[in-house]
């Protein structure tokens, strides 16, 4: 009885452990990203699988990397709310717009902001560039 119970629990953990599923179609895959704090990374995962035909392992590695960057961004926002809101005026996770700003001379160099500002810029850049690596 105990053995059966432990087998069932292991199977349950195994089946529930996958946060993002590739699903059968791109539409279904994207549907699971709605309302998630990690939705940007989740959408990227779906594109990797269904548009670029990446291997699951590569798509997953890319997604976890993006999650980490997003998490760093959230942590940074908590520790530097004013600076982050300033940064988000130009950013708002719209990386196609942000890439234009990135091409300009850094604000931090112009106005002498601290290294944290540079870190945020770096992480945004990392997100933008790593989003294509799957």
């Amino acid at each position, binding site marked *: 009885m105990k053995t059966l119970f432990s*087998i*069932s629990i292991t*199977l349950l953990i*195994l*089946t529930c452990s*996958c946060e993002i*599923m*590739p*699903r*059968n*179609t791109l539409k279904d895959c994207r549907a699971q990203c709605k309302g998630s704090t990690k939705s940007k990374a989740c959408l990227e995962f779906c594109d990797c*699988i*269904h*548009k*670029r*035909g990446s*291997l*699951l392992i590569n798509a997953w590695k890319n997604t976890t990397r993006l999650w980490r960057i997003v998490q760093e961004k959230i942590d940074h926002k908590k520790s530097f709310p004013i600076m982050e809101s300033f940064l988000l005026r130009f950013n708002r996770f719209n990386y196609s717009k942000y890439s234009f700003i990135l091409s300009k001379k850094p604000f931090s160099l112009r106005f002498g902001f601290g290294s944290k500002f540079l870190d945020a810029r770096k992480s945004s850049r990392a997100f933008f560039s790593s989003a294509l690596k799957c």
Partner: protein
Amino acid sequence: MSISSTLDRLHFKAKQNKFLQYFAVFNRLALAAGFLPSGFVKIMDERFTSLSVNHPMGHYLEALHRTGYYYTFIGILQVTAAILLVIPRTATLGALIYFPIILNICILSLALRFEGSFVSSPLMVLANLYLLCWDYDKLKYILPFYKQKT
């Protein structure tokens, strides 16, 4: 008390239970019903799903479909296992053939996070394990802890 005698006692007790007897018959029929359609699709050399080739499972199924008679062979083995499971005399042999196939499908579904059989295949493995345990009296001779009574 040795493991062998404990298992013998448990198995004997389980075999007396009417509910477990019916459950074993249900498992046999359900597992057979699971493999018959998929086996026939493979024997007829048709593609298994309409998944896109970009999907991780699509990669695998497309490659499997292009392996020539290996694909048909898997289908034949699936149908054989299903037919053997339905016949009471050959149910143990059917369960033995069924087990590696369904275990393979289960691991594949978990590894590729394939939704189609993500829940059903682990359950099918459990059902097959149940059938193997049900026929413990026939299979115990190959187990390492079996001791022959003198």
